[in-house]
C-alpha cells in the first residue's frame, strides 16, 4: 500500500455516496482510482440487472422464513448437582500457557480460563481445550475492574448456552456456577465473555473481536 492513494475502503465509501472532498479530489486527478471507482459502478449495474432490489428482497424473505432465528442449543453440556460440583475445585498457582484477554469499554479487561477434571486429574486450560465425554468443566473469569459482564458457550452450529447474563462482577477471579459435565456428543464451541453488547453481537453475527474467547474443541 502507498501513501499516494486513498485506501480501497475510502474509495468504496466514496463510490457508495459518502461525502469526502479529499478523496473525491484525488479520484478526479488519478486515473487508477477513477478506473477502480468506474469498475465498482459497473458491478453495481450488473447486480441490479441480475437481482433487482425487489427480487432480492423476495429471496431474502423466503430465506428468513426457512431459517430459524435462533438455532437450538444441543444440550451436550449439563449442569452438575452442587455436591458433585464441589469435586471440581479452584486451582491456584497453575497457570495455563496463555490467556486471551480483551479490553472492555470504560476500562479494564477480562480473561477466561477453564478448569477441567478428567479421570480424577484437574488442569487449568487456556486459550483452548479438547473435550471428551465425561469431562467436568468450570469456567474461570478474571476481571481487572468491576464491570457488567455476560458469558456463555457459542456452538459452531449457532446454538448458545448463557452462563452469566449482564451481571455486575467485582474485580478479581470468579469461578462460575454451575459446574458443567460434557455429555456423550460434544459440539465444537467457543466460550465467550465480554460486555453484554459485545456478547450479543458475537451471538448474532459471530463477530468475536470484542469478546474474550476460550475454544472448546470436540475430540474426533
Amino acid at each position: 500500500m502507498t501513501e499516494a492513494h486513498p485506501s480501497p475502503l475510502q474509495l468504496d465509501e466514496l463510490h457508495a455516496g459518502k461525502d469526502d472532498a479529499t478523496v473525491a479530489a484525488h479520484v478526479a486527478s488519478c486515473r487508477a482510482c477513477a478506473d477502480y471507482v468506474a469498475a465498482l459502478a459497473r458491478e453495481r449495474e450488473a447486480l441490479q440487472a441480475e437481482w433487482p432490489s425487489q427480487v432480492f428482497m423476495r429471496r431474502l424473505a423466503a430465506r428468513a422464513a426457512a431459517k430459524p432465528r435462533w438455532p437450538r442449543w444441543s444440550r451436550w453440556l449439563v449442569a452438575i448437582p452442587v455436591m458433585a460440583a464441589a469435586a471440581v475445585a479452584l486451582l491456584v498457582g497453575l497457570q495455563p500457557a496463555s490467556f486471551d484477554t480483551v479490553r472492555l469499554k470504560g476500562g479494564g479487561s477480562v480473561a477466561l480460563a477453564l478448569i477441567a477434571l478428567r479421570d480424577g486429574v484437574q488442569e487449568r486450560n487456556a486459550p483452548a481445550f479438547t473435550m471428551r465425554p465425561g469431562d467436568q468443566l468450570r469456567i474461570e473469569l478474571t476481571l481487572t475492574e468491576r464491570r457488567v459482564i455476560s458469558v456463555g458457550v457459542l456452538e459452531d452450529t449457532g446454538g448458545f448456552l448463557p452462563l452469566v447474563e449482564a451481571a455486575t462482577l467485582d474485580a478479581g477471579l470468579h469461578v462460575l456456577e454451575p459446574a458443567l459435565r460434557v455429555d456423550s456428543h460434544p459440539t465444537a464451541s467457543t466460550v465467550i465473555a465480554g460486555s453484554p453488547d459485545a456478547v450479543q453481537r458475537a451471538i448474532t453475527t459471530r463477530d468475536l473481536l470484542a469478546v474474550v474467547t476460550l475454544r472448546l474443541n470436540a475430540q474426533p
Partner: protein
Amino acid sequence: MGGLAHDEVAALYEAYGHLVRRRCGLTLRDAALADDALQEVFLKALRYGSEVKSAASPLAWLYRVADNCCYTLRKKITAPSPPPAAEPSWHPVHHLEARNGVLAALAGLPERDVRVAMLAFVDGLSQGEIADEVGSSRQTVNRKLQEIRERALVRLRGDDD
C-alpha cells in the same frame, strides 16, 4: 439488538449490495458461495441490523458482517475452487500478489486474524486504524500482520512447488 425494516434493508442493498458481493467473492473465490454470503449478510441486517443506523460507516458494518459470514461459509469449502471467471476489480494500492497470498492463507487463520487480514490487505487500513477497529493495541496488530504475512509466504511458496 433489533432488526431493520424491509424498506431499510432494500435501501442498504441498493447502495451497498454490489460491494458486499464483491468482498464475498474476493474472500471465498466461489461465485455460488459469495451469493449465499450476500443473502446471509442482508438477512442478518434484517434481523439484527438496527445498530447500522448509528454506525459511523454502514459499509464498514456490512463488511464486518460479511467477513464473519464468509468465515463460516469457508468451512464448507472442501476442495480448492477454480479461479473465478472474472476477477473483481482491484486497485493499485493492493499489492496483488500479497493480497492473493493472504486470501489463500485465510482458510488456516483463526476468525479474529481473518478480520485483521481483511482490514489490512483488502481495505488498506493502517495498523493504527485496524487497532481502533478491532480494539487491540497497535503492537498486537503489527505482530498479527507479521504472522499473517509469514503464513501467506509459506502458502505462496507451497503453491509454486
